[in-house]
């Protein structure tokens, strides 16, 4: 009913949005959200391909990816929180103790 290319296209668009956001944003939380976006675009791909191939591998993979994304978000927020507690901001351009 729906060509698989559309799904890939959708995933690619979301992935690109995520990547673009990651490159341009300097706020830690937003960057994290962009990464989540990219992971989810991969999920779209996986589910679409799973349906296309008629095997469940992709869907199982998706479950794992969701879990990993959550774990990643959890750890990311923990780090960002620690930074926020110390510096009262999470702007990555201003986190630059480590330069040469």
């Amino acid at each position, binding site marked *: 009913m729906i060509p698989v290319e559309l799904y890939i296209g959708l995933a690619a668009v979301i992935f690109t949005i995520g990547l673009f956001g990651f490159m341009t944003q300097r706020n830690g939380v937003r*960057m994290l959200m962009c990464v989540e976006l990219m992971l989810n675009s991969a999920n779209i791909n996986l589910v679409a391909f799973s349906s296309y191939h008629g095997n469940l591998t992709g869907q*199982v993979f998706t479950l794992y990816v969701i879990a990993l994304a959550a774990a990643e978000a959890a750890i990311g927020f923990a*780090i960002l929180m620690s930074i926020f507690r110390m510096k009262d901001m999470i702007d990555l351009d201003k986190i630059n103790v480590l330069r040469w």
Partner: protein
Amino acid sequence: MDLMLFAPEITMVVTGLAVLLIGLFLPVESKKVLGYLASLGILIALYFTVASLGTNALAFYDTLSVDALSQFFKIVFLVVALLFSIAAVKYTEGSKNTEEFYVLAIFATIGMMFVASANDLMVLFVAFELASISTYALSGFEKNNAQSLEASIKYFLIGSLSAALMLFGITFLYGVTGTTSIPGIAAGAAALAASPIGILAVVLLIAGFGFKIALVPFHMWAPDTYQGSPSLVSSLLAAGSKKMGIVAAFKVFIVALIALKVEWQIAFAILAVITMTVGNAAALSQTSVKRMLAYSSLAQAGYITMAFVVLTPMALGGGILYALSHGFMKAGAFIVTAAVVYMVLSENKDAQNPDHIDNFRGLGRRMPITALSMTVFVFALAGIPLTAGYMSKFVLFSSTIQAGFAWLAVIAILNSALSLYYYAKIVKYMYFLPTEGKKVSEPLPYTLALVVAVAGVLAIGFWPEPFIYWAMEAAKVLLAGGM
């Protein structure tokens, strides 16, 4: 299916959980026990791994494989974890979060071990992330240290970006071949090679792994992270985590995507050259020893990447051997900086940049064993004969020439000569520059870890036969999968 095949992993999981649970109920002053417990567990796992060398089996619906390759890399990771956990006894002294430090490291190691034995991209990715996530937390372990947090957030963001890129690439592999099994993808490689999506996947995967292995130009996080993280964590990152990226890339590219060799071989050649050159050139001017080691780590990763270009059993064996040697050398070097940082901080609690090279002045007199070990490590890193670094370079570079990539070998050898300069600088500071500092007693755990690392470096240097043999066996596994 024989569960004994996974005795090392099971041992590690049990150790990790035991450390976590016991640590919760111990008072702060007796948490030292955890270090011994963790080290014991890792040693047992190491024993199981070494004892099982030579077995070949598939398990868990063919998603995991036990072969020379996986076992060799498991040994690498376990060795690094062992050094880490011995040294951490001192580092975590008096911390109430001791068990977390160990558990995260152990789980990271478990992740790396599963990456080494993964025979399926799903397992590979999940294990990869297990290791990554644990190390994100580890590198931000010093919650009140701005450097550590900065290291952590940079590592985390770039790490998760690389995971996303990698995953996106993997989805395409799955999309074209309909399976995530590595041999399955290799079997469906014809379809991949015919499809433009195959190229796209290769590009994404190279970028994803490039970030993890810290190949230039995907390296910008590495110096910051290695410098800012606690030294021991840097040792785990440089010596362990980076190797994980390499073994994963081995599996994905050499086993699964060998049919697309033409596409990625040249990319890796360029990356290798840029990486080693930039790494060495940038290391020259560093004043932070950890940052210098970080750049040197880049360079070493560049050397190992040559294996992707050459693709002969000997080159791959050399790359694999290099991974083990680098594990010993780099972990050892970072443990030395940990000892120095400890020394500096115990003299002055608010010292800025405790890993500055000025703090290495006169180390030869202040901490003789530490300084001597550092000498061994940097000479090994520089590739002075009769050390692990030389042996690995010997195999790797010579095989590069053998395969007809003389230009690559020449660049690598010149780089390696260049690297001597900054390694020698450390030695110069340690032995030739005067200092007012007094002799300090060297913490036993650090010393012990250093002795183990030195023993490893020299063992590979003096008696490389078994190591080379098994590295070659591992390389054969890689090539047998794809060709």
